[in-house]
């Protein structure tokens, strides 16, 4: 192929004998040297591409697979294994989350009871000394102090998938696995009075399948437990709690649960809104009034430093202070009344919700046969009989979990619930960053390329900008903390938020400072991309513009910039991708583990760029390496990663779409 180029041009004129020799030599060369033909290079470059693609695709596949299956409901399995000490059975019930093959030591097998040990030995012989074990998510942490349990296959005496095994996701304490025993509708009995209980019981009418019983709290073997007793035994009760309409049996309990569930959940949401918005607003008013007083106090003390207390300014300020104090007292009074009102509302809701409880029985944990636990309905986020679900039910559950993940706030130190504040924080920060970095970067690049005269100074600036791109991101974080938070933020605080001191307002990490820091970090990308794009506009077009009498700026504005826009947007995309994926500097300038308050809310001035925020990247680090229940958190890491990748990809896609539109526009407008 390329051989013709390298052969001497004189060869055409040479004599036939020499020509033959040349051809032979050339043939020899091409067959002896593959490199000369270029074939290996095709393989090398192609191979490199394949490896890159495979790695990226593999990573994405892993994230998509692991992140995608997290929310899929698994069957609940109940296994019995022999217990070593007292010969009784040990029972575990839960979802299998992982399977592992290992080589058990002989001592492990020896420690098993006789019959099981023989079973284990046969199994081990069949599998060449290897055994399989499964990790069960057993939940019920409050009872067992464990979330997960390994069970080796050869230990298992019995394994079933019980029909009525219920998985309950709770607001607190993680999951509960058990059987629904009864559904209770309670009427509280004040002071545990037996006569009153009887009176209430006689006033209640039980519908089909319901019984009237009493709920008694007993203290047995050093633990409190709730027991249902017949009404006739009211006199023997230890500590009477309530009269209960009881629907016994899993089916009846589940049916009743379904009936009341939505109403309870709605009331719970209502309560949360009351707590969040109504109370928040009142407290905010209160805080504002307090700050107003403090501000006038500061003003007064400043005046008194300079002038006597009797000067006109001081008297005026003192009057103002008096006014502010009166207003503060008024607000205080109003706030107290408001709080009382909200509290009564909340108490009402709580009382209504506390009526409904689910009595659950565990499958028997450890050495205990089984335990019963009352779970209030308003503590239940979601409950489902895992082994009875149809495919449609599973899909519905899967989607419902995704929805919770996307729109809810985190619970239980970020291990459960959703990541909405983190999504909000990530997107808000990335957008503010782009608003800051693009105009600034484009202007700087325009000066460098269009106005500045080439020389050592411009080269130095260019080198500096390029080097800036190579500075480790944590350095930007340190700079952001030192300059934006501690210098700029502290000055802003002193000037405008003095009443709040010593609590910093802007003098700490926050959304604004994080965006500034990342804007700085991504600035070189935008400058370099813009310079390239501007340089690529043919100078003939500029000269044409000048020939028509346009000024320099007119030329830039009308001719250069429009044609450079797609290139500038490419730089913008690169900056976006880099900024959204950056975590290290954010840890210093505002990303925190928990900050449920969004930077935009319904309280004046509606936008609060000084607030700390949550970020998906930091959330991944936090959930992956800092959560207490790391086994349960691991799948969440993948899910959150999947989400972050999706967000970054969709931001990029949106920009690419914009660029393509612009490109089309200018492609037609060129002539």
């Amino acid at each position, binding site marked *: 192929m390329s051989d013709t180029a390298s052969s001497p041009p004189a060869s055409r004129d040479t004599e036939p004998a020499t020509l033959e020799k040349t051809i032979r030599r050339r043939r020899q060369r091409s067959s002896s040297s593959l490199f000369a033909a270029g074939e290996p290079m095709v393989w090398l470059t192609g191979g490199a591409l394949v490896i890159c693609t495979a790695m990226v695709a593999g990573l994405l596949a892993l994230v998509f697979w692991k992140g995608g299956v997290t929310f899929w409901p698994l069957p609940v399995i109940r296994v019995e294994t022999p217990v070593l000490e007292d010969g009784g059975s040990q029972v575990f019930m839960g979802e299998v989350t992982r399977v592992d093959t290992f080589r*058990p*030591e002989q*001592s492990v097998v020896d420690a098993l009871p006789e019959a099981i040990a023989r079973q284990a030995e046969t199994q081990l012989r069949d599998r060449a000394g290897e055994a399989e074990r499964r*990790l069960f998510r057993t939940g019920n*942490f*409050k*009872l*067992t*102090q*464990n*979330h*997960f*349990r*390994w069970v080796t296959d050869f230990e298992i005496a019995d394994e079933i998938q019980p029909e009525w095994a219920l998985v309950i996701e709770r607001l*607190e*304490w993680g999951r509960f696995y058990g059987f629904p025993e009864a559904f209770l509708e309670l009427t509280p009995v004040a002071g545990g009075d037996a006569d009153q209980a009887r009176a209430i019981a006689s006033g209640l009418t039980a519908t089909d399948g319901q019984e009237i019983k009493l709920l008694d709290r007993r203290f047995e*073997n*050093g*633990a409190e437990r709730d027991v249902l007793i017949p009404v006739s035994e009211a006199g023997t009760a230890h500590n009477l709690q309530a009269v209960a309409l009881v629907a016994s049996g899993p089916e009846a309990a589940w049916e009743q649960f379904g009936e009341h569930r939505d109403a309870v959940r709605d009331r719970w949401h209502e309560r949360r809104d009351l*707590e*969040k918005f109504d*109370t*928040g607003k009142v*407290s*905010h008013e*209160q*805080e504002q009034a*307090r700050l107003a007083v403090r501000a006038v106090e500061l003003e007064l003390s400043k005046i008194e430093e300079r002038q006597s207390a009797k000067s006109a300014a001081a008297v005026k300020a003192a009057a103002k202070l008096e006014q502010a104090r009166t207003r503060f007292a008024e607000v*205080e009074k109003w*706030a*107290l009344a408001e*709080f009382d009102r909200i*509290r009564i509302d909340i108490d009402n809701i709580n009382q209504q919700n506390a009526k409904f409880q689910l009595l659950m029985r565990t499958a028997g944990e*450890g*050495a*205990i046969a089984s*335990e019963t636990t009352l779970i209030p309905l308003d503590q239940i986020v979601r409950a489902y009989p895992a082994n009875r679900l149809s495919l449609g039910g599973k899909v519905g559950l899967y989607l419902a979990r995704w929805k919770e993940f996307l729109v809810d706030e985190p*619970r*239980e*130190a*970020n291990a459960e619930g959703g990541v909405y504040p983190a999504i909000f924080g990530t997107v808000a920060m990335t957008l503010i960053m782009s608003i800051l970095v693009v105009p600034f970067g484009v202007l700087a690049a325009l000066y460098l390329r269009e106005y500045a005269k080439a020389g050592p100074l411009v080269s130095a600036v260019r080198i500096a900008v390029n080097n800036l791109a190579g500075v480790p991101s944590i350095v930007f974080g340190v700079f952001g903390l030192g300059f934006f938070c501690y210098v700029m933020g502290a000055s802003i605080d002193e000037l405008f938020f003095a009443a709040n001191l*010593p*609590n*910093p307002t802007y003098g*700490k990490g926050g959304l604004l400072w994080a965006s500034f820091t990342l804007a700085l970090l991504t600035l070189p990308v935008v400058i370099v991309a813009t310079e390239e794009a501007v340089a690529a506009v043919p100078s003939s077009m500029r000269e044409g513009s000048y020939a028509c009498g346009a000024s320099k700026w007119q030329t830039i504005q009308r001719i250069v910039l429009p044609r450079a826009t797609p290139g500038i947007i490419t730089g913008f995309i690169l900056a976006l991708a880099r900024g959204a994926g950056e975590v290290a500097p954010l840890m210093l300038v505002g990303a*925190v*583990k*928990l*900050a*449920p*308050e969004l930077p935009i809310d319904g309280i004046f001035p509606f936008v609060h760029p000084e*607030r*700390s925020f949550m970020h998906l990247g930091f959330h991944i680090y936090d959930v*992956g*390496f*800092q959560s*207490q*229940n*790391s*086994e349960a958190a691991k799948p969440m890491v993948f899910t959150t990663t999947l989400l972050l990748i999706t967000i970054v990809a969709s931001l990029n896609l949106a920009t690419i779409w914009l660029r393509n539109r612009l490109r089309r526009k200018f492609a037609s407008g060129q002539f």
Partner: protein
Amino acid sequence: MIKVRNIAAAAAACALLATGPVAGQVKVDDKLPTYETVSGVAGTIKSVGSDTLNNLMTLWAEKFKEKYPSVQVEIEGKGSSTAPPALIAGASNFGPMSRAMKDKEMDEFEKKFGYKPIAVQTSIDMLAVYVHKDNPIAKAGLSLQQVDAMFSATRKGGNSSDIGTWGDAGLSGNWANKSISLYGRNSASGTYGYFKKHALFKGDYKDSVKEQPGSSSVVQGVASDLGGVGYSGLGYKTADVATVPLAKKHGDEAIPASPESVADYPLARFLLVYVNKQPGKDLDPLRREFLKLIFSKEGQEVVVKDGYLPVSYDIAKKTLAGVGIDI
């Protein structure tokens, strides 16, 4: 200073359900008050400090936010050593620490404010030595001297020789030649400091200790390494690791890291929260109520939920009296 003797007393008073029907179930002291909401609480809870206490602070803050929805919450937990500077700079109002403040940190605080910060004993942790779940050492146990010989190059505990393989630590069979792989925390961590002082007898760590950024990553490291051993708070235990019973001296009975044996366990410690309280002045409502919540029944239930041990009423009363709160 917190002495081990205090912990023993604490544990004796601690209402742990050792003989109840449910083995391992931890109960909160019944005498602790139930939390009651008051008015006039506003502001931001800003906590900077220990990683061990990170989840605990977050859970308390979540509870507090339920009571006082308008309160803002910001929690950072990158290590105990980050707590004193933040308290001194006024960037935080709570400084959770898994070790006591060093004299130097105390002095710096005193230089700025003229008085010392106050430590509140919020809960009890048993610093556990973790191994892979298949490791038989979890049954046999280790003495502190052996732990020292594993982790430390200086061996101030007095073990005669270095322990580099599991055979050196007393295991036989396949384990005898397996080398020990060490996991630990980074030096900003209070757990690092506590372990150095009490398990390494103030000696130095070996260079081969793999320093991890969080308690959970120590546990995860050990979980995926058959020959691994590491240390972390008890709250971070998973099903993939086992805790090693520890003996104070070689030949003593090894005490398991379980709630029942907190009084005898050699590495039990209080988890502290430092506050900046001016002597003779009451705490502001925000901090007062937050501390009250920590020492209520609900607050101590949270401790159990996070895998640590609750404090008794007596300790709660005493430690709260230190910051001028009466329960």
